[in-house]
């Protein structure tokens, strides 16, 4: 079984993220097994509950939440990058972190990379 892992390094207000979401959804619809999405660098901002994009613009965060709910798509954020981007991950309830996302480390990226047949970065 071919498996796919995706690395997102672009922020929620980047047009590149739109492409990434379209790509991921197309893969899911066609039955490709996506074992996880890893958010690194500015990509971690997708998990920031304090980000609000104007309502007439593309809602990347909502789209990730939807894909997570519809396909049980695992969404991992890098803890070091998250802390650097104002997303406190050390509290028990992690209220700054969007609940669709799992706080992980770079070790998770190693695991996804070794398990996946293909790794694609946006």
């Amino acid at each position, binding site marked *: 079984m071919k498996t796919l892992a995706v*690395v997102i390094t672009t922020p929620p207000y980047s047009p590149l993220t739109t492409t990434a979401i379209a790509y991921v959804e197309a893969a899911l619809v066609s039955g490709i097994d996506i074992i996880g999405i890893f958010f*690194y*660098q500015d990509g971690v901002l997708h998990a920031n509950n304090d980000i609000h994009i104007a309502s007439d613009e593309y809602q990347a965060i909502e789209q990730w939440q939807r894909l997570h709910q519809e396909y049980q798509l695992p969404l991992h954020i890098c803890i*070091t990058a998250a802390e650097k981007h104002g997303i406190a991950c050390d509290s028990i309830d992690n209220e700054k972190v969007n609940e669709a996302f799992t706080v992980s480390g*770079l*070790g998770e*990226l*190693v695991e996804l990379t*070794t398990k996946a047949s293909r790794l694609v970065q946006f």
Partner: protein
Amino acid sequence: MTTIDEKEAISLPQENGLAIINSKAPFSSTHGKDALDIALIFGSFEQNVSLFFQGDGVYQLIAQQDGSLLSVKDYLKTFSAFEFYDIEDIYVCQQSLANRQLGENFHISDVQVLPSIEFGAALNRHQHVLRF
């Protein structure tokens, strides 16, 4: 049988490893440091990782730089730890050096300078690629 032999002959040897392409200058963004963090994690998990330096990324290897002059943490010093992480395959694009009139005075040893075609071929031996 013949077809299988032919197929094997034309396919490049596959290393089951990760290639990280460094394409940005060291101190104007965090891309170099972010790429380094990934390389060291893969090294500490004993996974194969190779480093490729291309474009302005070649500046990360040039000797006698000091990030502290810019109040930037000098992550380039950590490159000297690569051998402890078994990171041994470090490739630099010869054309990128030439375009910037840079010599091969690197701050770490065992760096392989490759012409574009061979640089691409070395990259092609990896299963996964990340670019920073």
